[in-house]
């Protein structure tokens, strides 16, 4: 019962934060609400006995990624707030409509099987064991893991290249 309450609380907060991210016109607030959302999700991960992932979520998202976002928001001068200007006609209603349609279709498609899936039988047994996770990660998924490392390396190199080349800020365009 306690679990359910926790779930509902975190879920509601996560949803509210997500809506805030989208609806907030100030970019800085959006970023901060996104952090809130990430933290709620981390809590939900813990509920699912995925402690390691939850920790990683906090470190990677709420820590590293968010800091990057915030730095960028601070770095870019000028309007942080979106001004209502030229808009694509019908973009917002169409977007919402399509999103609802997608949700409805997905619900119809998957709803039945999800309910049939029921609850996890023994939620607290092996899943969530960091040791077990490490075993899988470094044996079966070792190549994927290494590839992820290479990907990160490439990303770093790419970012460095991107930001070194091109005109300096304020240079005549």
């Amino acid at each position, binding site marked *: 019962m306690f679990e359910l309450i926790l779930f509902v609380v975190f879920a509601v907060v996560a949803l509210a934060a997500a809506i805030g991210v989208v609806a907030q016109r100030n970019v800085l607030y959006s970023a901060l609400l996104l952090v809130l959302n990430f933290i709620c999700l981390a809590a939900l991960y813990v509920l699912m006995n995925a402690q390691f992932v939850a920790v990683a979520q906090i470190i990677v998202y709420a820590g590293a990624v968010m800091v990057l976002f915030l730095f960028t928001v601070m770095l870019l001068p000028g309007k942080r707030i979106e001004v209502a200007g030229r808009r*694509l006609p019908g*973009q917002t209603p*169409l*977007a919402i409509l*399509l*999103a609802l*349609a*997608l949700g409805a*279709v*997905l619900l*119809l*498609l998957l709803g039945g099987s999800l309910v049939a899936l029921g609850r996890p039988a023994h939620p607290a047994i092996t899943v969530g064991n960091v040791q077990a996770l490490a075993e899988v990660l470094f044996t079966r998924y070792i190549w994927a893991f290494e590839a992820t490392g290479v990907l990160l390396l490439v990303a770093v190199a790419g970012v460095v290249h991107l930001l070194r080349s091109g005109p300096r800020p304020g240079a005549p365009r």
Partner: protein
Amino acid sequence: MLQYAWLVLVFPLAGVLINAFFGYRLGRRACGALATVAVALSFLWGVGILAGLLNLPAEAREVHLALWDWIVAADLHVGLSLLVDPLSVVMLLVVTGVGALIHLYSNGYMREDPDYARFFTYLNLFIVGMLLLVLADNFLLLYLGWEAVGLCSYLLIGFWYQKKSAADAGKKAFIVNRVGDFGFALGIMLIFATFGTLGFREVFERAPVTLQAGGAVATAITLLLFTGAIGKSAQIPLYVWLPDAMEGPTPVSALIHAATMVTAGVYMVARTHVLFALAPVSSAVVAAIGTLTAIYAATIALVQTDIKRVLAYSTISQLGYMFLAVGVGAYAAGIFHLTTHAFFKALLFLGAGSVIHALGGEQDMRRMGGLFSKLRVTGITFVVAWLAISGIPPLSGFFSKDEILAAAYHSGNVPLWLIGLITAGLTAFYMSRAVFLTFFGDSRVSHEAAHHLHESPPTMTVPLAVLAVLAAIAGLGASAFNGFLEPVFEGAHAAEAGGLPEAALIALSVLAAVVGIALAWLMYQRRAIAPERIGARVPSLHRLLYNAYYVDYGYQRLVVRPLHALAQWLARSFDLGVIDGIVNGVPALVSGMSRRLRGWQSGYVRRYALSLVFGVVIVTTVALVMVRTI
């Protein structure tokens, strides 16, 4: 000697090449002399060939010279080979003999022209073509010579190309001739399809066996060949190019459009007489068209005022005579008339040229008159030619024309003979008219021209004199001539039918000539009957004749303009509109569709994202439907 007959071609060919590349560097005199000598050498060589031929027994006077294989494709074998027999030798001598004289004459006539080298190149090229034509041993080579002389005719008519009328006349000559050649070419193809060969000897040998006498194939072949002759020899209905051809320099008119090239049609019919003998219908058509042309052109000549046009229509008329002859089977008579005509008509043209030259380019007989005393040599020689063409004995024209009329009479076709006789009278009339208007009576020469009036230089008068002698005496050789040609035309004799005796026919034809001359004398010399009055009495007839029955106008209206309009329509509306329209329509359709679709490619990332989501919705919906239906 005979195996070197091809040398007659080499001399003028060398003249062509040398004059074409070095003519202007050689200078005027050398260039003209070279061309003349080349043709004269050919003539001398031709005389040698004649001697060689005469040495042979009469039946063996047929030598085939194969030079090299020309076109060989499967069963088609066409050699570049020459045929030397009495007929081709006669033509050879006429062409080179008259040709050499006219070349000589041109040295004087073209004295002032800056383009002398081009002129003599063309003229020599013409001789080459004409010799190929008469010496050809197969139909295709004949056709080659045929087209080659057509080309030279085109080039020489348009020699003064800066004059639009000259260029137009050249083009007209070529194209009208091509219409005739169309038939000729089809005839050649039909011959090949029928006989499997194009060689004269083979075709003529097989003809009596392969072709059914009077059959459709024989008739078709001969009529098609005759179509070619109609074009080249300016018969109805394709004669229209010849009067216009007078735009060319006068020596050209004399050589090509009177003496030699235009008679190629007669030569061709004579050459293929074996085929015509098998197609009586075609022969009748030949005779009918010839006769009709003879009188038709003669009536037009009655009222022309341009001296060269009179001569041009006269040529058409005389060619009609020749076709009448070959049509009724009197091939030797036709060729004989061809020869004498070459002499006197060349002489007439050269004389006219001399007059025109003396008057500084004047061609209208209404502004001539009384020139006899000023231009002695020209006058005397012209008179000889006039009497010859009118058929006054004992000049050459009398013999040849009389032979034709007699043959026509004996063929049993009296109307043809009668028309021929009337034409003889008309001929005498219009030639007399020309002579009286030009050489006799009061001078109507403009003051300006009278001041410069002079007799032509010897290079021009010598050929006149030589031709005058030939025109006068050639008739005396009639029987020798016929005898020489005998082996070629063996078996093709006009039947000697009853009726009027020979003497009566002769008397009638002389009478016609005398009446014609007398009438002209009364009208134009004595002025007893004013020609203007007659013209005024029937103005429409006069106009009709003066404008040559409006045939040119009719062709222009009925053939040229509709075809041109069709071409315009095809090019502007059909090709660009319909065909290209379809071609351009397909891409236009595609690009129209894509222009609509291009709206989606707005450049806005968010629109793309929207499309993406839309796509996802579609795909999942499809998945949903499929899951549900399974």
